[in-house]
């Protein structure tokens, strides 16, 4: 086990104005590796920002412990932790030039001038802003301000860079290019990036590992592929990507193939190593695993289209399959083909392979 940055049963309560208390962090245990880009992914209010603040030292834990290579950080104040933060709104000092902003951390540490100049130049170069040193922050675009914020942190050579939804203020195109840039920057500087985001696509595309958080708890910690293909529970399945989740009871098991019977009596064949006859289970089928045409070994479900949404590269069909929930299907259409066949009211047959389904436990099925 790599014991780089360990968070052990971290708990943090907040008082609500009404006098109650909210568990922002509820017994969170996370082991973060050195030199990885890990995302803390979750909806707003899930505790991801609180966790980041606790790591940075802006908040204290009520219970639990954070250690860096075995040393507890509890008594170390924010300004003495070897971590730096890139804030959501960048928090650049508006009265200082880009150069003075980047030099700030070195200034307050009384780093000698020659070295300071060299390191500031290096950091600005790293983020592609060489020559922008004399500008004021308000003369820069959002993406450039973002880079200054990153440079300002990296110049201090932190052990961990904390990024608090750093891309949320940028437009989509800019965001995508910054994602790639941050990822390659992380590779080249070789330090741990902890990246807080509510954007699952961002988390999946950038991270080495993703920790999905909800209601103060870690729901799953795994590689992006694993998070997507094998979500541990309903929350993860729903939050990351689009999922068709069908609840049912296992009524038969034959090898790896389970037969799931849903509440309204329809049957669904899925493959899983876990579960036995009589268990409640949920089948997760990603929209791309449901096809409108199939091969001989595929299973079929009949349904009726309730809605079809054109999104450019594909059609999203909402199909009532009589399993309690509408299924979402992605249909890659060909230019010139008639799409009328998939308009609302059309009867369709959906095909899937039992192997494509991922089976999870159902909460209160």
């Amino acid at each position, binding site marked *: 086990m790599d014991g780089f940055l360990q968070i052990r049963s971290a708990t943090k309560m907040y008082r609500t104005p009404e006098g109650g208390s909210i568990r922002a962090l509820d017994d969170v245990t996370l082991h973060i590796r050195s030199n990885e880009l890990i995302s803390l992914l979750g909806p707003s209010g899930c505790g991801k920002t609180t966790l980041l603040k606790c790591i940075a030292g802006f908040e204290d834990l009520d219970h639990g412990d954070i250690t860096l290579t075995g040393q507890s950080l509890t008594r170390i104040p924010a300004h003495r932790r070897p971590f730096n933060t890139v*804030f959501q*709104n960048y928090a650049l000092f*508006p009265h200082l030039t880009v150069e003075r902003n980047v030099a700030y951390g070195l200034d307050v540490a009384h780093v000698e001038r020659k070295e300071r100049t060299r390191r500031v130049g290096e950091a600005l170069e790293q983020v592609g802003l060489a020559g922008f040193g004399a500008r004021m922050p*308000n003369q820069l675009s959002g993406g450039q301000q973002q880079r200054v914020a990153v440079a300002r942190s990296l110049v201090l050579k932190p052990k961990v860079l904390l990024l608090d939804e750093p891309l949320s203020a940028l437009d989509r195109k800019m965001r995508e290019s910054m994602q790639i840039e941050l990822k390659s920057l992380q590779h080249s500087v070789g330090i741990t990036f902890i990246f807080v985001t509510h954007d699952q696509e961002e988390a999946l595309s950038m991270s080495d590992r993703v920790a999905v958080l909800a209601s103060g708890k870690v729901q799953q910690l795994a590689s992006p592929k694993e998070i997507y293909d094998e979500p541990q529970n309903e929350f993860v399945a729903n939050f990351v990507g689009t999922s068709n989740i069908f609840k049912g009871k296992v009524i038969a098991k034959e090898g790896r193939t389970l037969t799931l019977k849903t509440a309204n009596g329809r049957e669904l064949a899925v493959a899983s190593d876990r579960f036995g006859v009589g268990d409640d289970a949920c089948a997760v089928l990603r929209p791309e695993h449901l096809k409108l045409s199939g091969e001989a070994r595929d299973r079929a479900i009949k349904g009726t289209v309730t809605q079809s949404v054109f999104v450019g590269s594909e059609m999203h069909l909402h199909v009532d399959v009589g399993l309690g929930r509408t299924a979402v299907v992605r249909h890659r259409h060909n230019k010139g083909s008639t799409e009328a066949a998939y308009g609302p009211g059309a009867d369709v047959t959906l095909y899937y392979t039992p192997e494509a389904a991922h089976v999870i436990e159902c909460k209160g099925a």
Partner: protein
Amino acid sequence: MAETGATASRNRRTLILLLAPLTILLGVFFLIPLGIMVVYSFLEPGLYGGVEWNWYPYNYGRLIGWPLNDYEVFDPIYLKIFLNSLQIALMTVAGTLLLSYPAAFWVASMKGPRKSLVLFLVALPFFANMLVRIYAWLLLLRPTGFLSTLLESTGLIIEPLDLLFTNFSVIVGMVYVLTPFMFLPIYANVEKLDYSLVRASRDLGATNVQTLWRIILPLTAPGIIGGSVIVFIPALGNFIVPSLLGGSKVQMTGNLIERSFLQSRDWPFGAALALLIMAFVVVLFSLQFSRQSKSEGQGTR
């Protein structure tokens, strides 16, 4: 093209109409009297008030202490009084600043109705007559007053303490009267201070003291400067506070002006004194403005 021209001229006419009342008011009741003052300051004082229409530059001579006749010697008493006024005004600025700056942060951190209440309390003294409020300090500071009695009863002092009619009592009164003028601009500035900048500074390794010097003070400087200017100017010309709390021992230029006009009826000298204060303030202001526009120019370069 013609249409836009017509619109422009109509806009111009509207602007002139809108600005006319203020322009007339300032012209008639400020610029003309100011001109009269300038003219009077170069005229000979009349025997029973008013002026004699003779060229008489000696008002300014007297101001800097030049002897007016053979019986007098060079005595810069009026400049000394002006310097004392300056000192009192600067101390007043310092006092109001020390009180207001931390208070602004405190109030800015408050929430909801509490904050509104405190801001209302700051404005509350304006509702009571200033004379009454200053007179109250007279009762507090005199030897048989509250402060002296209190200190005596605790045994800290043995003899009654006479705080009245000193620079100190005048400064106390001025600070008391002018604090809201310092507080409000600073508060407006502190209120919009982005707290994430403070966090960023801490995150980058700055101590609290470094954060205060390098981030908080520079960013709240406009409020500090604004508040200082609008406290300094009335403090320099004030005559109510020094005449009540300073008595005959503490003279400020404001008292001199008041006495020149109302008691010794030497209008030209009073006008010269008033212009001295005004010139001083104008110079100060223009220095500040040129500094400000320079730093703004840097920001948009």
